[in-house]
């Protein structure tokens, strides 16, 4: 998931649009999570908000029976087949949502400050590796924290221009020093 730098975002925080990758919404009973871990090849975290990543695959627990999965796009079909194989005995729902969202990566010492412009949650409580479904300027987003100064925002496609525009406005505002 190599981020490429998009121009037109002057400011202390680098804002980049992440190229397409495979993204799934997994819904499965918490009791059956082991089967899902096996199919995905990654041990799924079981505490809400927590994430896990290895070998190009990543998973975050977003709700009591909900996980967000990321993988390399070329592995999409392979992953769907792996899940389909155990669906008969372990019911679940794996929905491909690669195109539903656009992901914005932000990096910089002031990234959290930039998010605080329109994200109402206490970002200090989202530790690196965690994820949370929240809002940014009234648009629903999933916020992933990759490091102290590194976040990703997953935004529904049609809300992306609105969210991205405000990030750019606010990034310029940060640059102004006021």
């Amino acid at each position, binding site marked *: 998931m190599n981020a490429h730098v998009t121009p037109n975002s002057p400011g202390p925080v680098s804002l980049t649009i992440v190229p*397409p990758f495979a993204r799934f*919404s997994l*819904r499965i009973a918490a009791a059956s999570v082991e089967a899902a871990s096996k199919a995905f090849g990654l041990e799924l975290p079981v505490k809400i908000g927590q994430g896990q990543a290895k070998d190009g695959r990543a998973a975050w627990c977003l709700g009591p*029976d909900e996980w967000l999965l990321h993988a390399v796009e070329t592995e999409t079909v392979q992953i769907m087949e792996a899940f389909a194989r155990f*669906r008969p005995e372990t*019911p*679940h*729902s794996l*929905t*491909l*949502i*690669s*195109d*539903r*969202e656009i992901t914005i990566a932000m990096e910089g010492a002031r990234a959290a400050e930039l998010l*605080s*412009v*329109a*994200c*109402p*949650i*206490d970002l*200090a409580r989202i530790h690196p590796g965690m994820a949370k479904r929240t809002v940014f*300027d*009234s*648009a629903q987003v999933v916020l992933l924290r990759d490091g102290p100064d590194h976040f990703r925002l997953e935004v*529904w*496609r*049609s*809300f992306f*221009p*609105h969210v991205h*525009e*405000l990030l750019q*406005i*606010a990034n*310029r*505002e940060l*640059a*102004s*020093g*006021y």
Partner: protein
Amino acid sequence: MTSFRVKDRGRVKADRPVRFSFDGVAYEGCEGDTVASALLANGVHLMGRGFKYHRPRGPVTAGSEEPNALIGTSRGVGRFEPNTRATVQEIYQGLTTESQNKWPSLKFDVGAINDRLYMLFSAGFYYKTFMWPRSFWDKVYEPFIRRAAGLGKAPVDVDPDHYASRYLYCDVLIVGAGPSGLAAALAAAQTGVNVVVVDEHAEMGGSLLSEPSVGINGKAAWDWLEATLDELGRLPNVRLMTRTTAIGYYHQNMIALCQKLTDHLAELPTDAPRERMWRVRAKQVVLGQGAIERPLVFDGNDRPGVMLASAAQTYLNRYGVKVGNRPVILTSHDSAWYAAFDLADAGAKVGAIVDTRNDIQAALMQQAKARGIETLTGHTATATSGRLRVKSVRVNPVRGGRVGKARTIDCDALLMSGGWTPSLHLFSHTKGSLHWDAEENVYLPGQQTEECHIAGAGRGLWGIAAVLEDGVKAGTAAVRALGHSCDAVRFDVSDDRTGNGVTHKELATDRSPGRAKAFIDFQNDVTAKDIRLAVREGMRSIEHVKRYTTNGMATDQGKMSNMNGLMIASDALQKEAPQVGLTTFRPPYTPTTFGTFAGYHKGSHFELTRKTPIDSWAEEHGAAFEPVALWRRAWYFPKAGETMHMAVSRECKATRESIGIFDASTLGKIEVSGPDAVEFMNRMYTNPWTKLAPGRCRYGLLLGEDGFIRDDGVIGRMRDDLFHVTTTTGGAARVLNMMEDYLQTEWPDLKVWLTSTTEEWATIALNGPNARKLLAPLVEGVDISADAFPHMSVAECTVAGFSSRLFRISFTGELGFEVNVPARHGRALWKKLMQAGRQYDICPYGTETMHVLRAEKGYIIIGQDTDGTVTPQDAGIGWAIGKAKPDFVGKRSLSRPDIVARDRKHLVGLLTDDPKIVLEEGAQIVTDPNQPLPMKMIGHVTSSYWSEALGRSIAMALVAGGHEKMDQTLYIPMPGHTVAAKVTGTVFYDPAGERLKVE
């Protein structure tokens, strides 16, 4: 020009002059001055005109509570602001200011005639004066009142400034950086918790800025202040914010702050916001808001030069400005005596200290005597003189309740103090209860509802030592509540100016109180007489007195007038103050710009607009757009010279004759997945789903528990355990929420999961007799011939190389397909289809054509042909109900007597007698156009269009008992004429559905 600047006093930078203008005259002030302090330094007291009587006015305070010195400020196009408080606005090089509410000039104002006519303008005068004749209200009275109401000019240009917002979490938020706030900060900060200290002023220190003579811990007040701010500023866990007003205190310790960032700068930095709204969630809050001095109420207490004694002290000690050379002090509180001493020490000749009290501390009397200041105790003030500036005050002794002989004392400033009112505004926002202190005649904070601590003068304490100690107490309590303990912080205070005082209703007078212009609310021009009149005319609660007199209803929210108004009302009613009440304080604490509230929501960022992946193509091809829910959708695609009517007719014709292409991406999509998916669908939708085979789809109808139609859409069964549900564009979120609600609360046992896929797919609809011809060569993985892929089929395949979910469905009555591809490919697929469709003259169409084509077929639009009170039977789609199903949402309601009643409004077709007339949607329908008014309306037109295919107008309507009125003629009365129309079925075009069967 006389300078009233006092050398070696004040905190302004005397060596840094700042030029600005007021009413076109250039003035010089110093860096650190406000407009008010700089004008006063130039001997200018006259800064405005009163609202109602247009009396000359000068600043009465030195802070944000200022009711009089309201000015207009400007710095170029769009940057004009009316009603700026001169006592708050800092000066910068080139600042342009002007006075308000005057014509032709501030010194000579024609509107001042109102002052002579003041008897006409008593409380409630609008209601009394403008009653008759009734016909005058709209044309004469109301426009007059509206013009007269409100100070200043409303800005007319677009505001070019940028406004920002931020969320902030902290452990302890301290509001007010006076001695109590700073002491709280010192106590709290040492524990390492996150502390935020805000203050509305340009610099922190509060009352310490006006009281340099006090000593704290062996240091002069200002040295201690500097050291303290330096210490706090260096702590990583402390954030100090100046020019930041806590404007509102909301639930669960959410505090709104307005931070002014650039209004004090000569040059506006690029991209810097003018103001920023902070939404702070604090675990603990310390309110150190202090107290506001009360004016005394007596005839002529509003002349320029009459001001609060504490303000004069602030102008002297903080800004180095003497407000007059011959001030007279008029007071009922010890604090004003110190103002007199400071002014005398700065070289002013204090005319007298007039105190309403008989017994004064001996120490004060001695200090006055030492300075040669005459003291008049047990006195009242009964008048002042001076038109544009106070010239004298008339004082009388009061002995045994009798007002004695008057004496006039010359003065150029009259400094009053009627005691102090603790600032309860933010505490009051929390709806915490207030406690009436009958001894001091003040309200104090009572029972708390939030995690907050009130410290210092804000809870009635007086003296620097007392408030410092109280601040430590509050700060300690705050961190203790967070589970921390902190070391005791102690202060050793010297030269503290403690004291006390009394409060009054209007001061006693030997003249007619009815003729006294004794002001309570300076901004709204309310006098003591108005309050008494309101009581005489039947107002019993302070809330009624307030509304009748407008006392406290100006932008200062009665910071200085509420308590005086209450004292007088309670006297007039002969009731204790708490029985008369206290008006409610509401956010914002001080006037706040709309910009601060709007934040980033302006221009292109004003409101979120959702666009489809194909939107850019539509825009490039000249589409007209319409908003649908949050989306904008292509409405029609006009060619050069085409009207909307022409474009829509062309699009309809092209689609029916060959092929039309339509962006249906906004349709809501929900993936219903799991072994119990079919059971869930059976329970949610009216239709039966069990026998629907994978690869087939069906029209689904969703009701509410009340049996009324909520949503509809075509639903495909992808697998035994997977449905692809579509919803209306506007209903997507609502339907998903409704489904989740049932799933989580009613049927948690069902193994089924819901995922929104609206934005995963771009959806392109192809309709028309050539649809298959166009599509077939592009499809791989499924045979879409008529037999292999009949109407209401769905398959996974590829279309033009893109993985796809392909539906054969129709919302037009023509052969139709809907191609879903991953959203990122939507535009590419559209272009390929346009390219491939050239041979068939493919025609892109918008939502208007979609509406016409579906209306010709009688297909309903949720929210247009239904309004939340329409049942499936009413809408003529009872066939969509699975009669054999044991249950579904809304089933039970469908058998209620009123739901099965025969006279319910039914959806019917309407054909106008004159085929050229297109009815107006929303028009009312009657049976007899000749009946007397008001006519009995039996329904309304829901959909109405020109049908190009039929060469006439068509309409649908909800009509009472409509299904039994077939072939009857009904009437639609319109302005000037009445339209006759015949009731028909709703399917106007191809009722047999032959056109779907294209081979």
